[in-house]
């Protein structure tokens, strides 16, 4: 039998990422629990499971990604099971299971953006931040730069099709991008670091 990574064990393993230095590691604090309870209270009684997505966002915003410990914590908070939460975590492309860079860039390459140069934009951004586009695969759509400052991901439709090509840096959308604008953008964010 050939040696293969165990697909089950892999669920509770995290790929190390240079981005981790920019995000605090996951830790259950009273503050976090309080926030989580507030989210859970938004939904009708007995529907704690509805809060799985909000809690995932809560953890991801602060810690950058969803680590196995947080899966267990969310499952416990929402009266669910780890495999259920993992099923949700692994479903949504917006949920990351390894740490992004400080600045996470999402470049749209769906048809409308592709028509306005999304694919070229993607390779240009990769070149600018020093990431090999081949590092982005179907299994690992996100690639992180060695210094952990940048991460990049090709995404499907950001819903700004008329103003393509579009990209997002963390929460901010940048439309009608071209190489000059990318240059400025990268410089601006490098300074913020």
């Amino acid at each position, binding site marked *: 039998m050939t040696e293969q990574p165990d697909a089950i064990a892999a669920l509770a393993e995290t790929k190390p990422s240079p981005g981790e230095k920019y995000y605090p590691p996951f830790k259950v604090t009273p503050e976090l629990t309080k926030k989580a309870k507030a989210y859970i209270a*938004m*939904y*009708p009684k007995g*529907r*704690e*499971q*509805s*809060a*799985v*997505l*909000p809690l*995932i*966002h809560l953890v991801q915003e602060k810690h950058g990604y969803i680590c196995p410990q947080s899966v267990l914590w969310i499952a416990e908070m*929402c009266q*669910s099971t780890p495999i*259920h939460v993992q*099923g*949700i975590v692994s*479903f*949504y*492309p*917006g*949920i990351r299971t390894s740490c992004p860079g400080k600045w996470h860039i*999402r470049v749209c*390459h*769906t*048809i*409308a953006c*592709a*028509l*306005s140069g999304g694919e070229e934009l993607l390779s240009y951004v990769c070149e600018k931040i020093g990431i090999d586009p081949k590092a982005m695969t179907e299994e690992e759509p996100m690639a992180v730069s060695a210094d952990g400052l940048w991460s990049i991901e090709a*995404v*499907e*439709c*950001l*819903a*700004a*099709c*008329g*103003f*393509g090509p579009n990209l*997002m840096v963390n*929460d*901010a*959308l940048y439309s009608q991008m071209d190489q000059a604008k990318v240059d400025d953008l990268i410089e601006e964010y490098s300074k913020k670091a």
Partner: protein
Amino acid sequence: MSEITYKPGHEPHLRETRRIFRNIDRVGYDPSIACFIKDGGYETLKKAIKMEPAAIIDEVKKSGLRGRGGAGFPTGVKWTFIPKGNTKPVYLVCNCDESEPGTFKDRFIVHQDPHQLLEGMIIACYAVQAHYAIIYMREEFPEAAKIVQRALAEAEKNNFLGKNILGSGYDLNIILHRGAGAYICGEETGLINSIEGVRPYPRIKPPFFPAAIGLYGCPTIVNNVESLCQVRQVLMRGGEAYAADGATRSPGTRIIGVSGDVQRPGYYEIISGSITYGDLLYELCGGPKPGRSFKAIIPGGASAKVMRCDEVLKGRNPDGSVRKMTIFDVPMDLDSIAQHGSMSGSGGVIVMDDSRSMPEMLRNLNRFFAWESCGQCTPCREGNPWMLKLSTRICQGKASPEDVDLLKSVADNICGRTVCAFGEACAWPVQAFTTKFREEFLALTRPINAFKPHNPEAAEARKYLTRED
């Protein structure tokens, strides 16, 4: 309203009618409630909340308003699907998971004019007597999530939300629920499952409408952002007045998003049916890019069937005689384009000019659908990666002419056999591209010995099957 000025580059074209987008990219307009109220906001709610809920539903039915999410189902009729004598709570969900490629209208509403949505939504909730409602916001709108959250707080502070709204005795709580980047959550039952905190697989039909059994097993109305804003317009204008505007079967304004190879892509709000695709592309959007000509149009979001610009369509003159026409002569309402085998969907028009390779376009769409398939049911889960692999191979020049037919056949096998409409959404582009641009696909292929392997596994296996002489 002559005092409205828009930011440079966003001025409406003369043939536009800005109602929903009245305040989008308007100089001096911000998403605050003060700004909205100054502009006459929440007046319609004050009027509506004094009406009987049934009267509001009647008004919406009278208006002929059809949903703007893509399927175009009459909104008022959808509301009446709540079972008679229902004793369970009724929920209303606003579908702000705008993710059909080519569609980008809801983005502007929630980012720039959130109270317009809230007012429409509160009216709709009151009409169906929902006391708990959810705005399902797509993950890619993090800023909008903050804006809407703030708007909700403002509305509650002004007693447009919360307990005893405007002294009417009606209570309503609206919460914001963020998605996490899945196209399938735009499907209403997938969206409901996403809210319930389970994998967002669309539910099996029957029941055909969540209005019967929806969120938490209770009657649930799911409406698109624009639809809810249109509800406000209906109440503002009156159902009959609303119905009088535009195409008979799809009245009101429509927001068209144009992307791709035109001079001026962007959003346009028009009276439904008042212009044709030709008017849109040549007048409003300024025609093709210099030195180019239009080749193909996807008229209603990525899942609509592509139309060739030189395709000869059969139209009917008022006297019933047949005339020849092209896509440019088709009026922009919800139904006209459907007669020619495509759909107007959510109003996202994607334009491709003669510089584009159609197989490459299809490969892009196949990648989108393969990535977004939820994987619940067999044909879609297995068919989409297959179609992507086929179209990729065609684009790489590693396919035989038979592969083009195979690609179409795979799409035919998915279509109509899936749990949700995603099956059609992913199959239609393939069927249309491979049929209408068949020559382009065939041009990339070459007769290939079927025994020649084209994937690493087959190449490996071949070592054991052939003898090196």
